[in-house]
């Protein structure tokens, strides 16, 4: 589904990713771990097409298409969802309206008819109850006054509504209490299917107790330095990044 080859990314003239390779097939869940400043968030932004993240070398292919030629919103239309580390607040825009606008933008991109208000309301209610999100929350402005956990849960609601085929979840687990962590994990596990794939960016292996990845990669200094399975995350938890970097060197 996603194929990244020799990816080099600069931010403000500074090289962050320096030749990253990663292939993710449909049905797989990959986890990327790494120390602060390794380039984890840069990778997610580069895949999503955020402005200011300059690709100086390499390629990103998504479902056979040159992803780098597409604009940010077109990548979303192709089925990419980026669960953000810090979901932004949009004052004055209700969650409900935002979701409807986003969903219909994506449906238009896919040449599907827009969803009418009544149909949408039913649809969103069922998604919200799946993720145990209070319907009242959908009436509030996007992320405004939400707790850290509520914001992350809201990201999961958006993911469920927009129905992407590939999700990048950037530290979705950070700042969550154990209940919220469970809800978020359930969201990811429900998303898992033979057709879908996910890339989970995380600091701790805690989330991986709930969402068992097929592959775990260690990102350090702009490259993937080690790849393994769930046990790699456990090893990391025990010995720290230092041990891995020493191994790699």
């Amino acid at each position, binding site marked *: 589904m996603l194929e990244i080859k020799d990816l080099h990314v600069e931010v403000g003239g500074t090289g962050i990713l320096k030749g990253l390779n990663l292939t993710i097939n449909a049905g797989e869940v990959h986890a990327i771990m790494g120390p602060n400043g390794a380039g984890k968030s840069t990778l997610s932004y580069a895949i999503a097409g955020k402005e200011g993240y300059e690709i100086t070398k390499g390629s990103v292919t998504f479902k056979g298409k040159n992803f780098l030629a597409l604009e940010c919103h077109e990548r979303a239309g192709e089925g990419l969802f980026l669960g*953000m580390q810090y979901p932004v607040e949009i004052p004055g825009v209700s969650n409900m309206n935002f979701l409807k*606008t986003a969903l219909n933008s*994506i449906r238009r991109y896919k040449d599907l008819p*827009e969803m009418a208000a009544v149909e949408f309301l039913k649809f969103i209610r069922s998604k919200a109850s799946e993720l145990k999100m209070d319907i009242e929350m959908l009436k509030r402005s996007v992320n405004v006054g939400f707790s850290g956990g509520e914001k992350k849960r809201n990201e999961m609601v958006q993911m469920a509504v927009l129905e992407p085929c590939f999700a990048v979840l950037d530290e979705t687990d950070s700042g969550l209490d154990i209940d919220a962590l469970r809800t978020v994990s359930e969201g990811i596990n429900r998303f898992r299917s033979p057709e879908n794939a996910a890339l989970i960016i995380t600091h701790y292996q805690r989330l991986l107790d709930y969402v068992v990845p097929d592959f775990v990669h260690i990102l350090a200094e702009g490259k993937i330095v080690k790849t393994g399975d769930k046990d790699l995350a456990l090893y990391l938890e025990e010995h720290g990044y230092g041990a891995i970097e020493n191994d790699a060197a």
Partner: protein
Amino acid sequence: MVSTAETRKAVEDVSADYKYGFVTDIDTEKAPIGLSEEVIRFISAKKNEPEWMLKHRLKAYKMWLKMEEPDWSLLHYEKIDLSKTYFYSAPKSAADGPQSLEDVDPELLETYKKLGIPLKEQEMLAGVQNIAVDVVFDSVSVATTFKKTLNEKGIIFCSISEAIIDYPEMVQKYMGSVVPMHDNFYAALNNAVFTDGTFVYIPKGVRCPMELSTYFRINEQNTGQFERTLIIADEGSYVSYLEGCTAPQRDENQLHAAVVELVILDDAEIKYSTVQNWYPGDKDGKGGIYNFVTKRAACRGVNAKVSWTQVETGSAITWKYPSCILQGDGSVGEFYSVAITNNHQQADTGTKMIHIGKNTKSVIISKGISAGKAQNIYRGLVKVMSNAENARNFTQCDSLLIGDRCGAHTVPYIEVKNPSAQMEHEATTSKISEEQLFYCQQRGLNIEEAMGVVVNGFCKDVMIQLPMEFAVEAQKLLGISLEGSVG
């Protein structure tokens, strides 16, 4: 929400040219060029006005001659050469006074279609849409609808020209009672040369059953447009009035200097909403409408209420301060404003709240958005007179900047002469955040839609004040107005 398929299409439609930038070819009867006593007599005669109206005009003209164009605002523009301006033009077919839509010039009707005002359809759909439209095309009202329904309630909704002839006592009593003819340079000019506008009277205890709506339109090249609107809400009555505008594309600047007077008696309420979308000039600031308007409401009665809501997206220059004179005890004045300026547009707008009566309240919510090289100025006065016990005001002025070449300025004046007054003033200035735009784009919205969503959110406190019919149009306008300001 701005980003519907329809909106997207609308944005695409205007991507090259201003959507409403067309010119209708209709024979007009013009007054001689420039301004003189002779021209005023010509206008008055054309309109078969009574002698008192002509005297009123001439008096205003003599006052105006002694006045100077104000230059205290932060606006920069080339002065209009009034000696090269036509002060009167009327579509020929209208000069004979069409009695119904069938008598209206077909080309005129075509113009409305282009503007998206299917007048006939609207009349037929009256029961559904509940909008009566009194269209001002150039200077003469050519069609008035729904008079019958309104008549049954005793509501008068007609052109000001008709009112001058049919209801002279009322016009003489109230015209100029809120905005005196010597009030300012443009108001004096309006008094001398106004050609048409709207007159509304809501009788005692009557709640107007529909939104009253007027679409203004400037058409003739070099023709100043001087509307005159007078709305009177008698005791215990209520009316919601909508005013919306579009204009064709022109190279030369067009002057618009309207005067709007609202009179609100005991326990009555007027809600006045405006969506202003006149041609703002091209990307280099060429052309565009000069909009120098005087709008004022007098809450004469006890517990009278007035609410101004405006969405200002058009015009090269906007100079406009819808104001409230809170004379009656317990009267309430509200001002909700969204002003968007893009490219080279300039807007100097705000309000005046004059608290005279006891327990009077006012609310000011102003949202200014600047993009491109535009300048946006909020200028407001809250004045509490010495007898106004327990006056209250809440003011909130928020500015949003898009890009780094535009400007936002807030100029609040507060004068309090009674110690029991409570004044609150909040102001913020922020830049549209890249993070917000990225978040929206990652969820599938293109850059224009993303901008529309964030800006509509910023303006929400004002937009919710608009009647439903207007809110949708206004939301679209916000997106369209900012088109090309990012990316």
